[in-house]
């Protein structure tokens, strides 16, 4: 004796958030039932099995709609209340920070997808869930790639995602597009949220869209002209007078405000060279990829080894930035501001004491 067929269809589609999450996490029906029993929803296995299967079927049917969330709102097959639709979409596009950290900056290609089982075993996120998350990244990437206008806004409109999630996706797309290196050992201490923040900074300040959002091009690529201009900043380190002048201005300003003034003074030239060199190299795509690793190697690590506090870093960078404007022979104020603004907030975010 066996149940051959068992379906339940509501006029308003019934969806259980808990089961949805289990489905998203990649559990099989049987595992989900076990988990639900453990969760104490109900003891009767049969009832739970029937319910779980129904829900899984519903989710599977919804999945193709979720790939184009806008369709969810005007499809006729399921009558789903708007708040539920939002929940479905949001959770479908939610991702594990651990997982995304692994693929951040990688090419969203078939090859990467093939390696997902490694990622899965490394992060403990189920393979099925990894695939969904990866496919989500890829889908968003593909759609947004072709679009003009602000990246975050595009993502939000096309995928009906909440603001924060849209920003995170923007970061992922941005990283994937520019192929930033994030997997090096030295970068492992950084979380996805650190990177997402930096990506936000870069998108908002260094892309073409940042200057003029009417531009044809979009937010995904860095502003080439700006990168070109960055080369002019080299004068700050190549001109010895300028470098000394800059140093003394900064040190004067910092006097009495920090405990590590000596270290700052001693390291000034190194640090300044580091930052300006990063700027000057950004015109090469390959060096763009190493942007974060450069920041860590050239700035964050030296500071950390001298035991600077975040406050120190902040002070230092503030004065370092401002003092440059006072230098007589330095003309590239706007490029400097645009560059240092981002560098400063990125470093502060990445500086874990």
């Amino acid at each position, binding site marked *: *004796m066996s149940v051959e*067929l068992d*379906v*339940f269809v*509501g006029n308003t589609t019934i969806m259980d*958030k808990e089961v949805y999450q289990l489905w998203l996490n990649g559990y099989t029906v049987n595992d989900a039932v076990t988990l639900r029993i453990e969760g104490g929803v109900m003891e009767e296995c049969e*009832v739970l099995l*029937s319910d779980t299967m129904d829900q899984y079927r519903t989710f599977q049917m919804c999945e193709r709609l979720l790939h184009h969330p806008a369709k969810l709102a005007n499809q006729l097959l399921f009558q789903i209340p708007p708040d539920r639709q939002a929940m479905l979409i*949001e959770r479908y596009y939610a991702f594990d920070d651990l997982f995304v950290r692994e693929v951040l900056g990688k090419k969203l290609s078939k090859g990467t997808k093939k390696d997902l089982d490694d990622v899965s075993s490394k992060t403990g996120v189920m393979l099925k869930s990894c695939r969904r998350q990866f496919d989500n990244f890829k889908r968003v990437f593909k759609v947004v790639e072709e679009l003009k206008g602000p990246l975050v806004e595009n993502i939000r409109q096309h995928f009906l995602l*909440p603001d924060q999630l849209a920003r995170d996706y923007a970061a992922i797309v941005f990283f994937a597009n520019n192929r930033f290196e994030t997997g090096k050992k030295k970068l492992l201490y950084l979380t996805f949220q650190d990177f997402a923040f930096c990506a936000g900074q870069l998108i908002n300040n260094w892309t073409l869209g940042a200057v003029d959002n009417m531009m044809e091009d979009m937010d995904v690529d860095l502003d080439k002209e700006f990168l070109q201009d960055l080369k002019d900043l080299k004068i700050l380190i190549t001109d010895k007078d300028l470098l000394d002048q800059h140093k003394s201005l900064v040190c004067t300003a910092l006097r009495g405000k920090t405990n590590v003034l000596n270290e700052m003074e001693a390291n000034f030239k190194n640090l300044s060279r580091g930052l300006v060199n990063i700027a000057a190299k950004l015109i090469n795509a390959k060096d763009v990829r190493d942007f974060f690793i450069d920041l860590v190697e050239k700035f964050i690590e030296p500071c950390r080894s001298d035991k600077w506090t975040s406050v120190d870093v902040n002070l230092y960078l503030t004065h370092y930035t401002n003092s440059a404007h006072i230098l007589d022979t330095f003309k590239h104020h706007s490029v400097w501001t645009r560059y240092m603004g981002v560098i400063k907030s990125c470093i502060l975010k990445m500086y874990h004491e």
Partner: protein
Amino acid sequence: MPGKLKAKIVAGRHLPVMDRASDLTDAFVEVKFGNVTFKTDVYPKSLNPQWNSEWFKFEVDDEDLQDEPLQITVLDHDTYSANDAIGKVYIDIDPLLCSEAATVISGWLPIYDTIHGIRGEINVLVKVDLFNDLNRFRQSSCGVKFFCTTSIPRCYRAVMIHGFVEELVVNEDPEYQWIDRIRTPRASNEARQRLIFLMSGELQRKIGLKVLEMGGNAVVGYLQCFDLEGESGLVVRAIGTACTLEKISTLPATATLPSNSSPSKDIKEPVFGEEGPGVPLSSGPPTPLRAQTFSSFSPSKSYSRQSSSSDTELSLTPKTGMGSGGSAGKEAGPLKALLRQQTQSALEQREYPFFTLTSFPPGFLLHLGGVVSARSVKLLDRIHNPDEPETRDAWWEEIRQEIKSHTKALGCHAVVGYSESTSICEEVCILSASGTAAILSSRFMQDGPLETDHRLSRQPLVFSTGSERVDGDMGSTASLGFEEMVPPGCEFCHIPYDELNIPFPAQLTYCCCCRRYKVPDVLFTTIDLPTEANITGKGCLIQARLCRTKKKAQGEGNAMAISNLLPFLEYELHTQLMNKLKLRGMNALFGLRIQISVGETMLLGLASATGVYLTALPSPGGIQVSGKTPSDITYEQHISNMQKKINDTIAKNKEVYEINPPEVVEEIIGSPIPEPRQRSRLFRSHSESSDEVSEIDLSHGKKDAFVLEIDDTDAVEDIHALLTDSPTPAGFYSCNTEIMPGIQNWTSAIQMFTSVRVFRLNNVNLTNQGLNKVFSDLCENLLKSLYFKLRSLVPCCLCHLNFTVAIPEDELIQVAVTAVAMSFDKELTLENGKQSGDKSLKKENDEQLQFNLELNAEMSSSNLSSPKGLTEVGSHPSAKAPSVDYSSFADRCSSWIEQLRLKAHTIRRGSVKTTSSLEKASPLPEGRSRSLRSNRSYSGSSVAVVRMTPLSFIPGAKIIKYLGIINMFFIRETTSLKEEGGVSGFLHTFIAEVFAMVRAHVAALGGNAVVSYSMKECVFMENPNKNQAQCLINVSGDAVIFVRESEVEAASVHPQSAATQTSNGEGT
């Protein structure tokens, strides 16, 4: 040429990719009506074509308009090969033919293909210009309104109820024609869909003609069924109740309170003068009625009894004339007799005094006799001449005659809650009919517009508006009761038959309400609980389930075997029902539906009903178990254990269902537990012999206990079955009627659902008992699953929980159910209950006042009595009540419209919520998702919300317009079963698609809900070896526009704006 049909194809969207090379589609559309076809241009390379066609005009007879559907086919243009069909849309234009229904069909309709399911949507506009045709001999019946609803539709009043109409048409089933061997499954499915569309159109037209002949303008309780007889053909048959309906003017205020509430003053309410111009207000004939109706009543309720049905034996007693008055008794005797004569004469003119309605305007139903039913087993033969379906007609004729004679035997002259059904297996067909024998008032049946008609007819209206306002509206039973002030409450329970000449063994007592008339000890009926009925406590779903094996046989032998089994089956079902009823401490069943399904090697019987405690009927005795072999001590112990269990269960049930009947003080101090002497071994319900009845009136109340003697395995099994019904989980109630007796304050959260299960019996050697258990478990498990699924709506009631069983093939049992879960406010129940007392007192005085004050009075009364009023005020106590421990209150999804609309409401609810374990477990905190949600606007969503319910009303809302009947038939077939998720995946998708299509068609008619929705057919066939499955579904219902009560109130201030508001009411 009396009609012009116009159609315009606007656009398509979400079309499937038909050209793999380009990933696009070159779509065009064929619009076909009758034999005329138009085409749109090809819209190349798009999945969202914009055709924007001209108006295609069809000039046609109105006869065709009624019969034919408009057929829209979407195709993919292919230059080199044949064009590929994407899918079709059939549009029933019947709703456009009636001036009071819809005027245009406009909207996105799913494009449906029988192999692929829904494939995108098409936006169409359809209109009809109808010219008047006064030809007396016309064949069309345009303008007759059809309603599936089995009560007087909410925004109409019945001027006259004419009676029974029936018709059937037959045809060959295309699936079984020779050509089917060579055509594709798609072509065959489409031929079938189209044929059934045509046949139901024709059927409806023919019924319409009969209605016109009778002088009516509408069919209420329209029930159309298909008999798929296989080789021998396809029968479409329908029954209904012809009525003359009159639309109630939109102002809800007109109604006010029922005038007749005070029995003494009676009659003419001058107030109505304004409303019913030209109606003479003399008080003629109604007086007797009235006296009769109201003289007897006391605050509690009363009851009547049941007649056991089924039986063929009843036909032995075709005593005519018995109906008139014996029991009428003293005072009212002559009047009653007079009344009866009147009514009877009115009814006797009819061939069949049958009514498919299950609830009636107050005052219409005088007495209930009990259930009458008849079955017959027939052998199908090929229908040779489709134009002369005489055989089938004759079959039904026979059955109806039998019903008629049973009715007479019960001293009744009419049958209410009448329905017919069939079960077919190979060439054997069981025809069944059942209903409730009743005595009706003549008020709605006399010819000529009697003053009574008018006045009375107003009542339904009163009720509908009144009750709707009370939110659940249905709630009504009780709340109406108060409003009416004089609950006649017990009259319908009084026996209609002669006390000394009872047609079946029964035990009579004096009515516990009025103490004047006799009532039976139990009452079984097929109708809904009358609104005026007095009940104690709450009701509950009671099911009797039975499975009987039978030998495989052919032809006549088979039919014979089945007819021999039937009486036993019915008898046992009846016994089970009776036992379960007693076990719940109740004494009456409403909405009884007995379904018998035949398969090759077994018969299935499923009886569902809603049990209640009618105050007028005596309290049921307990159930006594007795053993046959008292020698054995352990056995004795076993028995006493069982007895204890039973007693405990009864006590517990009484608590659960809040059955504390007002103790009848004077009488019977006798032991409530039956004395041993009464062990007269009655398996049968009624059982106490009738002479005993006459002996003492006093003691009848409680004396009879039901005795189960355990002398064979059957009895053990019975008892076992009794006790294994798992109790409904806390917070849930269930019933198979329109409303749950004892619950009123529905919130507006409703969730309609369909659930289907198919069970395979792998073990061929099952005994009857084994089968019974399997079947019973199947039903129980299904119920359990439903309760679990719907837990977020708690406290709630599953209404209209009617199971449909079938035996699709050997060793398979299919159970399907379509019902609605409606949540209610628990605290308010109590509140209301308390209020009711005061209220009814107050009402007495206020009554006339209120009557005149119309609006004001209504508003105040609604604030007083309706939960809604309280809710909106937001001050009600439930917010604090700690007793609400139901899980995930917050999770209730179906109340979302309200959540959007009435913020206050949401907030209130939120505060009640207690976090459930589920909620806790969910990884995303509610807070976050909520705040995120607020960022987003879904206003762009173009899909209107359409509610569906099997009931005739929507809680918290008022139906302001009926747009026409929805009657759709779909076939879905697949040859890639596995790929579609197996049988469950296949059917799940299909049912979801059917819902979607129903919703889309309703929305296109301008409606926002379907009421009285039912899935009348769900035939599922599979062949897993070939990876194939096929399913047929037939659904029907009434498309309506409703407005929320809050809006009604607003609208009543500005009546003109009401209409506009309506149309886009639930638009978003």
